[in-house]
């Protein structure tokens, strides 16, 4: 498989009056063609900042300090706004958080998608674009006749489908879906996730799913990166992450989710709260909440270590932990 997106040691900080906010701190990962990856973390952990850095849709006070974002072999970091405009939509497109509200209420939904196509591909005629929207509608499970309706005539799930159609409009190689189903009801969420998965496989696209909900990610992503306080703390294929989590935060996150399957288990709580990323400390950021903390953790940031093939963990005590988990499980 060919790598499509390679992020290397990306550091993106926000300058604020109170100091530097280290929103993404030394992030690296590779996404292959046709692969789907999940970025999991709680609010404020920097997962949206990663996606905004890839798209370079950053506010004025944000700075990419160092690192590279290779998309299809070229580094996007030095790209100008004009160059980025050619990449956006056509190369990488994005489904934003609460995207249903991002449709303009006074334009017909179909026309908004046509506009996106015509802007990015000037030699496409209006009729051709309209035809393409029709086939996109079929692809995402919408009736093409609804193209001429306004957003308020759509239900929440239909709007989300239209947004997915729009993100596919210019045949991008990569789609970043930032909390694509968070505002939807479970049944609608289920159908949308199925649809996204089907389209991704059919078109052999790469996807990055961003969510706080580890269960949603488990369903759609083949590879998972867990983020905590601006850093990726653990990364592996999804089965490994779920079967053999090694970072204490990942373990805590998994056992703190109430489950509907199997026997009712006691929920495990992670004490404390996520840290403020303002002037983040130079030690393990999970240390204050970690049950396995030692002196070492307070002295330096744990480096990434491969605990097994393609399973990266930034923790000084992943091995100890795994024993601990198996002890708990056997009780």
């Amino acid at each position, binding site marked *: 498989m060919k790598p499509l997106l390679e992020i290397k040691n990306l550091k993106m900080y926000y300058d604020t009056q109170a100091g530097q906010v280290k929103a993404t701190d030394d992030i690296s990962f590779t996404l292959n063609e046709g692969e789907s990856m999940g970025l999991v973390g709680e609010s404020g952990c920097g997962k949206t900042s990663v996606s905004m850095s890839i798209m370079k849709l950053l506010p004025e006070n944000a700075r990419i300090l160092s690192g590279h974002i290779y998309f299809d072999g070229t580094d996007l970091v030095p790209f100008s706004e004009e160059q980025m405009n050619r990449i956006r939509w056509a190369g990488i497109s994005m489904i934003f958080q609460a995207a249903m509200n991002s449709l303009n209420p006074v334009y017909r939904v179909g026309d908004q998608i046509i506009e996106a196509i015509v802007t990015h591909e000037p030699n496409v005629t209006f009729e051709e674009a309209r035809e393409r929207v029709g086939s996109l509608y079929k692809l995402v499970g919408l009736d093409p006749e609804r193209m001429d309706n306004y957003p308020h005539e759509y239900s929440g799930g239909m709007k989300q489908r239209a947004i997915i159609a729009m993100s596919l409009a210019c045949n991008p190689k990569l789609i970043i879906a930032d909390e694509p189903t968070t505002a939807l009801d479970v*049944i609608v969420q289920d*159908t949308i996730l199925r649809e996204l998965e089907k389209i991704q496989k059919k078109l052999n696209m790469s996807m990055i799913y961003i969510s706080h909900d580890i269960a949603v990610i488990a*369903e759609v992503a083949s590879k998972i990166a867990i983020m905590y306080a601006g850093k990726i703390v653990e990364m592996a294929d999804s089965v490994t992450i779920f079967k053999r989590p090694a970072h204490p935060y990942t373990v805590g996150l998994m056992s703190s989710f*109430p489950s509907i399957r199997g026997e009712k288990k006691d*929920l495990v709580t992670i004490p404390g709260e996520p840290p403020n990323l303002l002037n983040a400390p130079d030690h393990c950021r999970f240390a204050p909440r970690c049950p396995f903390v030692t002196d070492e953790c307070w002295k330096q940031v744990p480096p990434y270590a491969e605990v097994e093939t393609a399973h990266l963990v930034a923790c000084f005590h992943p091995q100890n932990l795994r024993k601990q988990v198996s002890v708990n499980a056997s009780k």
Partner: protein
Amino acid sequence: MPVNDRETVIKVENLDKFFPMKKSVFSVSKHFLHAVDKVNFDIKRGQVLSLVGESGCGKTTTGKTLLKLYEPTNGSITFLNRDVTHLNSAEDRKWFHSRTQMIFQDPFESLNPRKTIFDIVSEPMNIQNFGSLRKREVMVMDILKRVGISPPDAFLWRYPHELSGGQRQRVAIARSLVMKPEFVVADEPTSMLDVSIRTQVMKLMMDLIKEMNMSFLYITHDLAVARYMADEISVMYLGKIVEHAGSEELIKNPLHPYTKALISAVPVPDPEFRRTSVNIKGGIGKPIDPLPRCRFYERCPFAMEICTQKDPELIDVGNDHQVACFLYEKR
């Protein structure tokens, strides 16, 4: 003591809440939205009932009507063996409202930003003219300590914006419980919180319910959360309760096609688990002047002729399990 022998705290019989649809300034509305339609349940002392459903199904309206924030259209509410359907005298209102409370969903909006934590938590006591200032202070400190705001005196004079989301929800819970209510309606109290914080707050509420022997109506869209919090679950669809059972019974042995769909739509945090896909179509509608027929008819994969002819009643199928569906009616 077995739940069935305990005293009934609140009993709801045939509760209706209809909202008139606005037509124009001059005409009287002839159309009504049946937000809550013939709802029956009772909650015993120390018991938690969870009302589960998608957005727009009337679960919040039910909660608010129960606390008399809305005037019920028909039906009766009995609280501690007193009819509280219409609270006509100030004395009755005081009696009722000093014994009941509500916890809201959004801790960012439910706390007045211009009041200190002490003012917020002591407000119920001010309204009820309860105790001396000294006594109020003691009670506020007590409850703050109890909900995990420590040390409480460090927080008394702070403002909501200085607190994190989890701390705010703890303060909101403290405000609701400071008067030691006998019945509390909690409307999605954890849905705005982050995963690791959510479990903390859920555990805190469970401890407090046990400790204070309160009766709870826990409103949520998340069946997994309901399973952990509640003794019994009622599933609501377009203003009607379609299924009711003990929480484990309902999760393990769902009968109504809607409940089955809801359960199978919940994502499973296990990448190797393949769910059977949900087989119901479309989204939730609006119950405006509903016809006397099953409201789930359009989306139901098992729809029969009888479903269009009359409204299914809740029938007991044994094991304290009730369902409103013709599939289970003996003919």
